[in-house]
């Protein structure tokens, strides 16, 4: 058998239990997005790419929980989450519209050990919309370690205004693939293989994050058109439910 092996080869990613976090600050950098800076007491340090669960409880005990990727790198004093408000989003709508500094939120994390950059190997990061959030954590980690050369980044969105962390991504040299507006010499259009060709290098692991349709299209480009091995492509898809499971 020549089947690829998924997994960490016995290594375990850090995982933390429930904590009571306090919203230290927030802002709304995109029309539908909110960035939350959380103080999480006694937290377990995360790895870039991991996520947290946020759980909300109503007066009658009703609960709802969703997963959100961490944008901050390990070592930051606070945990930074970016949440995009979904249509009729029960949790995202609350976080985007109702939460104020000083509010208390139940959180659990870090979670996930697959969509994690080890901080050492070369990687190609491909994000769509708020799928760039875990990639931002990877970029900041590389910056903190003095190894920004390890990462190549492509970020896709309809417009620059709608792309979370657009300035930070552009400042780190990311290719911005905007489908509804020109970006320099790049004409409006979806992410293509031609966009990715200059970013591909031998030995890379690819990290693809975005909506199910974006992740499917982007991982197809990498495997079918650029010849990456499927086992070297790690995918995090999120749907209306948000989150990383099978």
């Amino acid at each position: 058998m020549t089947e690829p092996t998924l997994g960490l080869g016995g290594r375990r990613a850090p995982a933390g239990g429930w904590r009571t976090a306090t919203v230290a600050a927030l802002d709304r950098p995109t029309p539908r997005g909110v960035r939350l800076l959380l103080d999480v007491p006694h937290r377990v340090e995360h790895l870039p790419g991991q996520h947290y669960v946020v759980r909300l409880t109503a007066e009658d005990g009703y609960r709802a929980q969703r997963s959100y990727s961490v944008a901050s790198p390990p070592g930051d004093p606070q945990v930074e989450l970016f949440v995009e408000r979904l249509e009729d989003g029960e949790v995202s709508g609350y976080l985007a519209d109702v939460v104020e500094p000083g509010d208390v939120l139940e959180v659990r994390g870090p979670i996930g050990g697959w969509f994690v950059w080890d901080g050492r190997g070369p990687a190609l990061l491909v994000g769509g919309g708020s799928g760039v959030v875990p990639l931002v954590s990877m970029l900041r980690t590389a910056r903190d370690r003095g190894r920004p050369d390890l990462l190549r980044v492509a970020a896709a969105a309809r417009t620059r205004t709608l792309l979370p962390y657009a300035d930070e991504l552009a400042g780190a040299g990311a290719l911005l693939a905007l489908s509804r507006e020109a970006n320099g010499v790049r004409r409006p259009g979806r992410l293509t293989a031609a966009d990715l060709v200059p970013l591909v290098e031998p030995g890379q692991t690819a990290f693809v994050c975005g909506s199910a349709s974006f992740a499917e299209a982007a991982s197809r480009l990498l495997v079918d058109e650029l010849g990456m091995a499927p086992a070297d492509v790690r995918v995090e898809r999120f749907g209306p439910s948000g989150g990383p499971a099978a």
Partner: protein
Amino acid sequence: MAGPTRGFLGRRRERDPRLPPGQYDAGADWPVLTAEPTPRIAPETWSITVDGRVESPTTWSWDDVHRLPASEYRGDIHCVTTWSKFDTHFAGVSVDTLLEAARPTADAHFVMATAKTGYTTNLPLEDVTGGRAWLVWEFDGKPLPIEHGGPVRLLVPHLYFWKSAKWVTRLTLLQRDQQGFWEQNGYHDRGDPWREQRYQGD
């Protein structure tokens, strides 16, 4: 445990008794959530092998499994990312049928399901026996779409859906439990939605 979250009302709700705790009704949606690129698998190249702690390791081709007694599941499915989907209809073959042929040895207590992509997930043997697990190739009377695990996926609907390995190609019976892909990555070894066994330690 913390009290109520200030200002959180939640969806107006008449809680459907079919919803396990922390889940919501996804309605007609069926979100696609996988950790790897979707493979392309032609049915004629697909096969299922049952091996490990069994008397007679057996492999069935696509044509072989279609000659086995048909079995179907009608009911609900639950994803750990908090969506549930009601009244699904899957058709294929019962895992019991495969195990009857391969004959687990007395010391077989767990199963590792392996997908064509290398994805793995572990289950107690008792969770895939007694009419509670299937290999399925039809959804609502049509071929199972590849993004949902076609041509053939495992279906263990009483557990969170990451246990229902897409593109399944091997069931290995084990004496001792070993962790699969998501289980190594922090998710629960059993994954019972009614006990909200989402993560290790739940």
